[in-house]
């Protein structure tokens, strides 16, 4: 089993390299469509035309596009991620500060989405052919129809502004100083021995995590329910009943185990979308992650940052889909053993 998983990881890695190259090329070409001059932007506004021309030469902007791309790629590979035009800081510093925050947010949201989705799916399946199912089904469409950034705004309005139960700005209450050890705030507050700071960070995460988790859950719920319905058409379910197993055991040991497989492969795609959702949710809660960085960069047409943040999103999606595929491999013996 270990060997199969390693083999699969190796294959995914081999596929990931060309994928990332194509993604990088795509980003590069799309952003060169812009009617702005990166050379002029990286100089002070009072720079002369000659200075701009010299800068263009220095940045390689006079060369053909493919050559420019290769130069940029070469810089990336040598660890030079470039300078942010707007922040006047190395892009790497900006991204490495923002990335852990987004990962924390996405990870917790995935857990919430899975728990809510699976519970909802089981519930809807349990009430199949009854009025309660229609109600659950209908509410899942309602939940599905509110996109995550509107969930974020509504939760903020209700729990933050009106009820004032939860904070909805930044990541920590102002009295705490941010410990930096791993970059992951929840982890760092614990490692620094500050449970009070940890609780504060956690409270700050509740609303964004709920917004993302809840809006990703209906898809999971609906696929789980329909694959449970499919699974229950299978002979082995009937046979398990004929052997005298009770319904609870049939559902949890035979039904859910099989129905979870198609659900899992959907979750791979769904979690990819969830990273997109973090973008606006971060903006709404002023959460200092990649999304805020990206929006700032876009507003300032900060090309070096946009490119790298775009790549970072791709890498996160590739990682999560690899993890999901790995889980699928572990849970599905048909792929694991022949």
């Amino acid at each position, binding site marked *: 089993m270990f060997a199969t998983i390693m083999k699969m990881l190796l294959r995914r890695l081999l596929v990931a390299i060309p994928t990332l190259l194509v993604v990088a090329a795509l980003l590069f070409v799309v952003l060169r469509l812009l009617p702005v001059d990166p050379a002029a932007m990286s100089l002070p506004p009072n720079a002369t035309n000659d200075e701009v021309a010299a800068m263009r030469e220095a940045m390689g902007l006079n060369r053909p596009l493919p050559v420019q791309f290769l130069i940029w790629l070469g810089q990336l590979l040598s660890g030079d991620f470039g300078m942010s035009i707007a922040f006047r800081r190395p892009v790497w510093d900006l991204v490495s500060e923002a990335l852990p925050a987004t990962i924390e947010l996405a990870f917790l949201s995935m857990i919430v989405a899975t728990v809510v989705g699976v519970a909802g799916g089981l519930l809807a399946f349990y009430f199949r052919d009854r009025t309660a199912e229609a109600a659950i089904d209908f509410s899942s469409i309602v939940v599905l129809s509110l996109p995550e950034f509107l969930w974020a705004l509504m939760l903020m309005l209700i729990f933050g502004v009106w009820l004032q139960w939860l904070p909805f700005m930044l990541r920590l209450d102002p009295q705490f100083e941010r410990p930096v050890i791993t970059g992951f705030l929840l982890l760092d507050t614990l490692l620094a021995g500050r449970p009070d700071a940890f609780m504060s960070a956690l409270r700050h995460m509740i609303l964004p995590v709920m917004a993302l988790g809840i809006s990703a859950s209906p898809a999971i719920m609906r696929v789980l329910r329909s694959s449970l319905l499919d699974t229950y058409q299978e002979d082995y379910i009937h046979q398990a009943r004929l052997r005298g197993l009770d319904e609870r055991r049939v559902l949890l040991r035979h039904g859910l185990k099989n129905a979870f497989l198609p659900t899992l492969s959907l979750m791979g795609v769904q979690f990819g979308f969830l990273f997109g959702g973090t973008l606006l949710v971060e903006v709404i809660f002023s959460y200092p992650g990649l999304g805020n960085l990206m929006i700032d960069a876009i507003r300032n047409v900060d090309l070096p940052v*946009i490119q790298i943040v775009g790549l970072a999103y791709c890498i996160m999606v590739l990682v999560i889909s690899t993890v999901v595929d790995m889980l699928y491999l572990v849970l599905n013996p048909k792929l694991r053993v022949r």
Partner: protein
Amino acid sequence: MPSLPLWLSNTRSLIGFTLLIFIVGAALLAPVLAPHDPNEQDLINMLLPPFWVEGSDAAFPLGTDSLGRDILSRLLYGARVAMTVAIFATLGATLLGAFLAHLAGYFGGWVDWLIGRIIDVWLSFPPVVLSLILMVGLGAGLWNVILAIVLVDWTRFCRVLRSEVMVVRRRDYVSAARLLGFSHVRTITREILPATLPLLITLMALEMGIAVVVEAILSFAGMSVGNEVPAWGQMIADARQDVYNAPSTLILPSFAVFVTVFAFNILGDGLRRSLDTRLTQTERA
């Protein structure tokens, strides 16, 4: 083929369809219905509350925003943007996605491999991120928004339809058609497309909802049709600063987005139930 009464006999489709008639009507009749110019600023009447709250002004039934623009008028004009994007982006994404899906699923081999790899690259971007980046490259504007959504969302169609085409392709009646002298094009259009059409239609309804959301997200991020055109996402973004004193400026456009997306989703769900034979069979059993 499903006849008109069949797909409308479903309560869900009917709810969705009725809601959409209202929304499309509002969009079409916006110039007639709107009491004000959506961009007209009335700095005396800033942040007026809607009619159910005390202190409202009958001239601004749903109140005004922080620049004194009439919310109702902006909502009506916003529906035009939302609906235009929903219809054209979906048409584009459907044509591109369905064409490639049928190509890949029917011919298999290297065609399928190539299209599959392209989809893989696309799926490694979260759609929101990709469309934002495309908008940065393309610049603001209604048709650029539509183009960006088409370029991002064709993969949704392609991925789902491709596997459906592969299922239909394996049916013996497709082999039989080939044996009776059907060309590839005729086989695809006469034997495979009719079988994938129900799924295609369902996906289109859902995609229209997604397009509305994406447009709202883009205009929320200020990357959509531009400031001079009223759009729901833009209204939501503008209202964020007034959450404490005028929450209705935030809630009303959010509700407009929600109702529209809900209408498309419930229509899609209804269509799925009445058109997807596999599902109806399981439900009957």
